[in-house]
């Protein structure tokens, strides 16, 4: 079995640069968004360019995490699972943009950093050459495109592609080269299943209609979840309490944003044991997940500061730190 001794040792040093709870307290104490950006720039965020442009800074940090992985792993295919959701986001954007011809610039619609370039997906969909897409995407892309062209129902198109994304994630989890990647895929699929079930139930779908929209994930019974979703967030929370994901139930009862936060926190808790791993791919995957979660927290914090939200409200939305 391949080991990752050099790579993990480098990641251990890089983990020192992750933001801690104390850093977030400093950021919360900042008088305004610019002061928070200046603090981040002092910590080396934005590639040391000293920029106070928040989107550029956050993008530079996202790119830096993946650039490090490419440096350590070559093409970084081992971590493809972490990028799968971007591919399906881009596919959804390509199908909808191809149908509606929104004319929006690609950078507003597509995410960088997927396993295949967004431009390739866009071209394949625009020219209806779905065979240019990866095998797992082809059927879903063609079905979503035909459905949207025939019915104009964007929600149905979303349902098809969301399901395909979840199926791809759960399939990848079974062949994941490290348990951390399987944890990521399953936790992501579970939280997505719950969101889909609640959204569909709110749109008046029956349990029988909801079940096919959900991915099959361990420890979650699709039928029971679909039935529970009819009772709204509290119904789904009640069902969650009977599963190993009971820790998410209280947050789900409160609000969807609290639920999103709890899902991210659960992920961080589950990857935390990687801090004591020295030989496997796990710490690398954990680092990428931790960085993406950290960047998400900073984005929420900056948005909160910009909109003048109360500090306590911003604090509640922040994710747990891995660092």
């Amino acid at each position, binding site marked *: 079995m391949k080991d990752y001794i*050099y790579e*993990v*040792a*480098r990641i251990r*040093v890089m983990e*020192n640069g992750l933001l801690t709870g104390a850093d977030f307290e400093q950021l919360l104490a900042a008088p305004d968004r610019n002061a928070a950006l200046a603090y981040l720039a002092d910590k080396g965020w934005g590639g040391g360019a000293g920029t106070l442009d928040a989107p550029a800074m956050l993008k530079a940090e996202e790119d830096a995490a993946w650039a490090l992985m490419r440096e350590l792993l070559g093409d970084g295919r081992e971590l493809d699972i972490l990028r799968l959701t971007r591919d399906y986001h881009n596919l959804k954007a390509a199908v909808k943009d191809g149908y509606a011809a929104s004319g929006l610039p690609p950078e507003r619609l597509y995410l960088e950093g997927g396993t295949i370039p967004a431009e390739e997906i866009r071209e394949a969909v625009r020219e209806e050459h779905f065979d240019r897409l990866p095998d797992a995407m082809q059927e879903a892309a063609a079905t979503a495109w035909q459905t949207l062209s025939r019915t104009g129902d964007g929600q149905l198109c979303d349902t098809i592609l969301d399901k395909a994304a979840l199926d791809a994630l759960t399939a990848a989890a079974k062949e994941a080269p490290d348990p951390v990647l399987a944890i990521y895929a399953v936790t992501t699929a579970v939280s997505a299943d719950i969101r889909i079930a609640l959204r569909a139930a709110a749109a008046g779908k029956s349990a029988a209609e909801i079940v096919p929209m959900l991915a099959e994930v361990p420890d979650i019974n699709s039928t029971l979840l679909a039935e529970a979703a009819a009772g709204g967030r509290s119904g789904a929370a009640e069902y969650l309490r009977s599963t190993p994901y009971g820790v998410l139930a209280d947050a789900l009862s409160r609000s969807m944003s609290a639920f999103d936060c709890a899902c991210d926190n659960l992920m961080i808790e589950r990857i935390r044991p990687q801090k004591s791993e*020295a*030989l496997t791919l796990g710490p690398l995957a954990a680092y990428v997940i931790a960085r993406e979660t950290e960047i998400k927290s900073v984005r929420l914090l900056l948005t909160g500061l910009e909109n003048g939200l109360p500090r306590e409200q911003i604090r509640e939305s922040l994710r747990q730190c891995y660092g």
Partner: protein
Amino acid sequence: MNMGMLSDNLGIVYALLGAALATFLAGSGSAIGVGMGGRAAAGVLTEKPELFAKVLILQLLPGTQGIYGLLVAFVVLGKIGILGGTAPTAAEGLLFLAACLPIGVAGLISAIHQGKASVASISLLAKRPDSFGRAMLLPAMVETYAILALLVSLLTVARL
């Protein structure tokens, strides 16, 4: 070498086999352990070159087993008529072989595990550069068992 010559020197053959195993097994373990430590050290030094001296010590910790194996092999060679002493009988040769096994086998296994402990300690040092003492103590614990094996091998060889 014909079969008659081989049977006449069977004692030396067994003893040499023991010396070879002590050197080869313990040395291989050390090579693996030091190699693992080296890769972890390189990872840390890429980002923090100032930790060179500290990580070098941690990297070298699994190297001692190879030296122990070499030491036992030298003592054996000094007693079987190669560097000194007299040629052993077949029975004595087998005893030399048996005496070399503890440091050979325990050296191999302990060096590999000490290498893994060193890798973990180098990671600890990367996170907390001020924890060098603790980081060194943890892989050093594994050394105990290599020293016990060395003692058994050395005392036995010395008595033969």
